[in-house]
């Protein structure tokens, strides 16, 4: 049921929801034929990409990410933007299946004609979050979405990957009982462009303010990642729709500051190079481990290494020589 790449390309450029969705499915597929087709499509779309604001949003489970995106996204579409949300859902079960429930918390955005939301299970795809999300982001840009949001849960490794593909990385937190800094890795704070304390509403307002100050202090101890940007700590209430507009202003201010100094162009260049290195490593890795000579001798050499019959270095050299001698 696959179509000619041109059809997908034209569909995406004509903002066809169905063909955009099906292109993303090809990108996410584990089948080599699908991947080849996806690569072809992405390549042809490349000239039409690059013009969106790329936003990463992460936060611990329960921080209210989906509810935040619901408020934030609807505000943006009211301003005239078209937004795409790529939600990476980690809720896979042992069987490998998953429950993708993000849209139940984005009730209005889910039915908004100016929004495209795509939840994806994090498991079972080759190349992991990095490859498929980057390409999906590009395809959404080509389809005319001028704000692309990548949502991920802040408990795994995926957030640094996401940070390395977006312009602005927002970390969503909630006020807890004095243990704000627990549960989120220091590494996540290092890549944050803003920290937002969500759920600053009702009897939570004071606690949110206390948490805000604590984060400010914590950030002071970190080396700023950019000379042109001081990471702000903000508060907001997604359910009461307060403080959401200020976050968008912050994103724009960041963009202006970094564009003026040339840092934004530099950042995207670095990201493209990083991505190329990543793909190169991934390709080499895959090439190596699927090579028939390698797969032929790998089990034997592993066994001999384990039994002490050959040194690990000699075993590795032996395998690498297969390729060098081509």
């Amino acid at each position: 049921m696959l179509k000619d790449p041109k059809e997908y390309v034209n569909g995406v450029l004509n903002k066809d929801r169905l063909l955009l969705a099906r292109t993303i499915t090809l990108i996410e597929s584990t089948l080599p034929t699908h991947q080849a087709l996806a690569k072809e499509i992405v390549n042809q779309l490349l000239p039409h990409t690059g013009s969106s604001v790329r936003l990463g949003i992460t936060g611990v489970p329960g921080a209210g990410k989906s509810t935040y995106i619901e408020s934030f996204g609807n505000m943006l579409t009211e301003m005239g933007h078209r937004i795409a949300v790529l939600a990476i859902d980690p809720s896979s079960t042992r069987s490998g299946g998953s429950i993708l429930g993000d849209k139940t918390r984005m009730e209005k955005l889910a039915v908004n004609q100016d929004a495209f939301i795509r939840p994806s299970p994090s498991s079972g795809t080759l190349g992991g979050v990095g490859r498929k999300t980057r390409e999906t982001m590009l395809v959404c840009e080509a389809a005319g979405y001028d704000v692309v949001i990548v949502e991920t849960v802040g408990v795994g490794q995926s957030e640094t990957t996401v940070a390395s593909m977006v312009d602005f990385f927002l970390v969503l937190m909630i006020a807890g009982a004095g243990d704000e800094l627990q549960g989120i890795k220091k590494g996540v704070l290092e890549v944050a462009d803003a920290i937002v304390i969500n759920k600053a509403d009702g009897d939570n307002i004071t606690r949110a303010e206390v948490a805000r100050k604590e984060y400010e202090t914590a950030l002071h101890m970190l080396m700023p990642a950019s000379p042109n940007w001081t990471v702000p700590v903000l508060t907001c209430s997604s359910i009461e729709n307060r403080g959401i507009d200020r976050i968008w202003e912050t994103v724009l201010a960041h963009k202006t500051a970094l564009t003026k100094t040339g840092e934004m162009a530099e950042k995207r260049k670095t990201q493209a190079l990083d991505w190329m290195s990543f793909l190169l490593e991934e390709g080499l890795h895959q090439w190596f481990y699927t090579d028939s000579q390698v797969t032929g001798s790998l089990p034997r050499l592993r066994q001999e290494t384990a039994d002490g019959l050959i040194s690990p270095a000699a075993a590795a050299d032996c395998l690498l020589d297969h390729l060098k001698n081509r």
Partner: protein
Amino acid sequence: MSEHPNLQQWKDLASKQMKGKPVDALDWMTPEGIRVKPLYTAEDLENLDANTLPGMAPYMRGPMATMYAGRPWTVRQYAGFSTAKESNAFYHKALAAGQKGLSVAFDLATHRGYDSDHPRVSGDIGKAGVAIDSVEDMKILFDGIPLDKMSVSMTMNGAVIPILAGYIVAAEEQGVSHEQLSGTIQNDILKEYLTRNTYIYPPGPSMRIISDIMSFCSKNMPRYNTISISGYHMMEAGANSVLQTAFTLADGIEYVKAALKSGMDVDTFAPRLSFFFGIGMNFFMDIAMLRAARFLWHRSMSQFDPKNPKSSMLRTHCQTSGWSLTEQDPYNNVIRTTLEAITAVLGGTQSLHTNSFDEAIGLPTDFSARIARNTQIVVQEESQICHVIDPLGGSYYVESLTNSIIEEAQKIIDEIEELGGMAKAIESGMPKMRIEESAARKQARIDQGLDVIVGVNKYKLTDEKIDFDVREVPSSVRDEQVSRLKEIKETRDSDAVKKALADLTSAAQNDGNLLEAALPAVRARATLGEISDAMESVFGRFVATTRCISGAYSSEFSSNDDTIKSLKKRTADFLEKQGRRPRLLVTKMGQDGHDRGFKVVASAYADLGFDVDISPMFQTPEEAAKMAIENDVHVVGASSLAAGHKTLIPSLIDELGKIGGDDIIVVAGGVIPPGDYDFLFKAGVKAVFGPGTPITDSADKTMTLLEEKYL
């Protein structure tokens, strides 16, 4: 305490009969986690205080001193469908045939505060209850029914203000004053957030509405029950009897606290609190549940120090379980309902609804409603059960089981108190998760045949056919309602309506009593939708968070169950050949908020290796189609429990076609009359899964459809 001398002898004897196996092997672990032994003796009562009296604290044996010996329970059948005129005719027939009180069912549009001409509700009008748009409909509904004499129960939780005000004004126009009115409004919003989802506003304003109603009625309608704290819907959502007891009482405690906080004295409102329990097929368990609930309510209320004994007396309505009804071999449902009716009676209920045998198939007809009503009338008037109060009081087993429920439920009530009360607990998601877990486990036991359901997973009929009529509500009901709305809007004084609605909005902003403020609007012929909107403009409309558990379904199966293993393998094969797992969107369209079925399905399918997308509740077909396309699913499963399937599902298929998704497979599940299957197949539905379909069967069929199409 020394071992009863004969008990050891009995154990030896029993063990010998079991060829040497210990007698403990006969113990049964109930879904509530209570260990039930094969024999109870006087020893089991030694530490229990079972020797209490009815009509006296702690009311374990019944709230009234004479119970049914003095006056039997009230036969109160819940009914309503189509227009007010049709429902009114139905009520007149039922009252002539021995029914004692009225109980009104409203359609889903009414529940959610929408007029019949609202675009979101086109599939719901008059389907699961009667459509009410204004006081004119209310007057027709109660035409010829003297509201000063007839007690009227109304199942309404979302649009309580316009409905209760409509009832009051309809009575006024009959010449009946406020203080003459007697009956009950369900008005139990907390459980809506938990299970049934027919709310309108967020929890804060909703709790305020309840306090406003309590306060208005305590002053003006002293014979009216202002709330019916309901466990029924929790049971229907899959809660076991301990969960039902604990969560219902915890809801009750929360309402008491809210009323006290608004400045009322406990004895002014607590005597008007009533309860509503669901009765399932676990016969002794649910008898014990009602006894335990009365004991626990008395104990819980003592913390508020009431002076009036009625303040801590639990009075309850009961309804037989809808979940226990099957579409397969449906006459068996008469037997199930009879058993459940006797359970409720032995448990000491104050009023009772007995379900119609055809409710897993469609709306009750005159015939099935008569059988349902007579089920309890026969028990009441022919069986001689009524002469003795609490006839199982003192039974070793029932007393012991009552005590176990008290202990287990109290633990959960304490846990909720630690979370800061039921409102906070609901926010935390704890009660909902427990109920859903209980539901998924039950489904898994049914699918494995561990819980037997005759005609479904055992003694199945090879040739199912429906040889009785099924009621269908014609779509012309909507046209009728819409034209009446138009007429009302043309003939009323629109300035007066505008002013009354502005006053209501201002009362919402400024802490006025909302019921009182709604009365002038109703008198001026403001519609139900307009009144709801006037408050919504201040309060907003609540959007639920859907959470879904995973793992509970498959954990009830043994790890090498062949059915499960083979389905997992098929989803894995699909992944290998198609590059991704089979992806399924489960969606609920229309205003039906019963989400147990669709969540159990989501959770179980994920356990079987599907990627399952869940849609928000209350979707229109167009919205569901957009989501199916964006998420690029292989299959859409549409759940329908409220008779909207004939409009909503074909319309979904249309919408999918419009945006290029005609290759997406559509299957349907829920309460769908077999007579409608062909209609749905012709509309393009590929499979229909009726109530009681084991999930393993539906997943097997779905996988077959996918394999035929893609592999």
